[in-house]
């Protein structure tokens, strides 16, 4: 099993003719991903590493029965690219770019939900199910197949942990970059039930950050639905405090929401193992696996 992507995934790459699109299409193909088509407006008819390019997502999707897309397009085209993909009926849309305007993501978040589309990102490394398929730009050589699932707001911390895991023989079922933005297309709480139901996944690692309440909501979800062991780390204890949200920010954060301490307490109360560093995550995983 694994979640979101696997060997059967038929992937479209939007922005396939760009610098990053070309490079990572090659990488994804090398990893074994079934990249069935690419899209770049005005480049229909060309091909990139043997992958046919179309002018529109709908045509690419219809011609190749695609069921997922990854957007290698700049932030300013993410809204258009994602709405096009949602409108074309693709059930999984993965956005990579950082600096997507927050209110555009807000609209995409609700649109995806109302259409029953799973939206991942933005500001995400994508999704990888090691040994099967990857849709994104993660350095795949550090991954190895196994039973630990990763959901991470940070790409780099996830890589860090995954590398150490692979080095000690702890493989991964699926790793999802939920992305570091204020409004992620899918949150920890959205994805946790999928992992709970995934037979391959035995342990779940959450890599969170200060700010927002995704970790608090994840804790709530774990307490209710998740019986598999969960390990979590919250980055940013020593980051300078955010002082840009005025009195309103202080009012809504009056209950402590958003701080590392609050997140860790909420997760701990839900039975989650709290790690202080990425190395600590690996130590805990070793104990659990033993």
């Amino acid at each position, binding site marked *: 099993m694994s979640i979101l992507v696997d060997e059967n995934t038929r992937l479209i790459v939007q922005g396939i003719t760009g610098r990053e699109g070309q490079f990572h299409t090659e990488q994804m193909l090398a990893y074994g991903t079934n990249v069935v088509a690419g899209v770049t407006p005005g480049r229909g008819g060309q091909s990139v590493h043997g992958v046919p390019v179309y002018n529109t997502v709908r045509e690419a999707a219809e011609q190749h029965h695609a069921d997922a897309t990854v957007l290698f397009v700049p932030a300013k085209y993410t809204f258009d690219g994602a709405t096009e993909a949602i409108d074309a009926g693709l059930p999984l849309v993965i956005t990579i770019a950082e600096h997507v305007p*927050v*209110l555009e993501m807000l609209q995409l*978040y609700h649109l995806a939900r109302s259409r029953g589309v799973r939206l991942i990102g933005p500001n995400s490394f994508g999704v990888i199910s090691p040994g099967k398929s990857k849709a994104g730009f993660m350095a795949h050589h550090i991954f190895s197949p196994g039973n630990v699932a990763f959901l991470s707001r*940070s790409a780099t911390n*996830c890589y860090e942990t995954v590398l150490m895991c692979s080095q000690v023989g702890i493989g991964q079922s699926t790793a999802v970059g939920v992305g570091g933005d204020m*409004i992620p297309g899918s949150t920890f709480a959205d994805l946790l039930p999928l992992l709970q139901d995934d037979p391959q996944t035995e342990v779940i690692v959450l890599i969170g*950050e200060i700010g927002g309440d995704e970790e608090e909501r994840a804790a709530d979800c774990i307490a209710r639905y998740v019986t598999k062991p969960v390990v979590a780390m919250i980055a940013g204890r020593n980051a300078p405090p955010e002082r840009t949200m005025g009195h309103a920010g202080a*009012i809504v954060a009056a209950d402590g929401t958003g701080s590392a301490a609050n997140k860790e307490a909420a997760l701990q109360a839900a039975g989650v193992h709290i790690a202080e560093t990425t*190395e600590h995550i690996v130590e805990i995983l070793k104990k659990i696996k033993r």
Partner: protein
Amino acid sequence: MLLMEYLARDLLAEKNIPIPRGRVVSPGETPDLSDVRFPAVVKAQVPTGGRGKAGGILPVMNAKEAKAVIQNILGMTIKGFPVERALVVEKINGKRELYLAILLDRGRKCPTVIFSASGGVEIEEIARTKPDSVIRAEIEPTVGVREYHTRYLLDRAGLEETCFFQFHEILENLYRVFWDRDCLLAEINPLMIDEEGNLIAVDAKINVDDSAMTIHHSDLLELRDSLERDERVLEARKNKFLFIPVAAEGRITIMSNGSGMLMASMDALQQRGLPARSVLDLGGGATADRIAKGIGILMEQPGVEGLFANIFGGITRCDEIAAGVKTAAESLRDGQFIVLRLEGTNKPQGREILQSVSRNNVVLVEKLSEAAGVFAERMGAV
């Protein structure tokens, strides 16, 4: 970007929200106060709170007095920020101070109105001691502000019949500011009920989403850069990096290609008693020349001894990083060093480039804990 009061006022006025009449005065300027009504208030414009307590807000009775106070305030420095502008506004005699803000609610994924019939500087205290006096109402983004929002807010605050339509118009317009200007926060405090019973936005705080600003609001983008006084921030921005000053006493700096790893690196070195002077986020996909530039920005700061470059390449490629580090290493001051941790995409190509670094000021490590050890050893920390 958090806009200072005089800019936030402009955005409110753009959407027809009533604000006190006033003028902005810069140093050296001969202020024309002919259309300012007195008594008035002179307010220092600084990108920080607490300026009232710091003496940055002073009442004046007439133009002459105003000019003297302006001169005085323009000479001040508040919490490290030199006052570059003074705002002179008519004094509003109010019957009541309300609090009204629209905030991006990250959890619920919608704009949320925060309202209180007890506004003013004590609002946070009030929110803490009397949480029921702070009323929240979500706004469905596909529908926007409707009359029922206003009715609920005023009703719950016990202000049911108080200037319903005026309040509703201000709420609608504040939402237009919030939405059209891609805000994370649009706050009016106090929203004053004046002696004639009219509502007026006496002070405002607006935070605009930087990503949206870059794409949709070039006017604000230019403004942001014209207001920034930290050369390093500007230089970093030009290269699409994010430069954040952290601890003035820090002797090291940190660079990474993602905020998560940056934070993890800060946490790890902080634990060893090594706070960072400043940190720099390369973002995704930086090229060699831009990377060298980024290292320069960090290392040119006086008193900085070491750089921890913690890179885990995904969309950022290790060969680009290595080439950038190699170039930057040539320009380091004597005694300065770089601890480099390099992983991910194109790692072998990166390591190959590093073998030809001539000077001995680049230490290659394999992991975070090892890096902390090198710093501890070289700098005598815990």
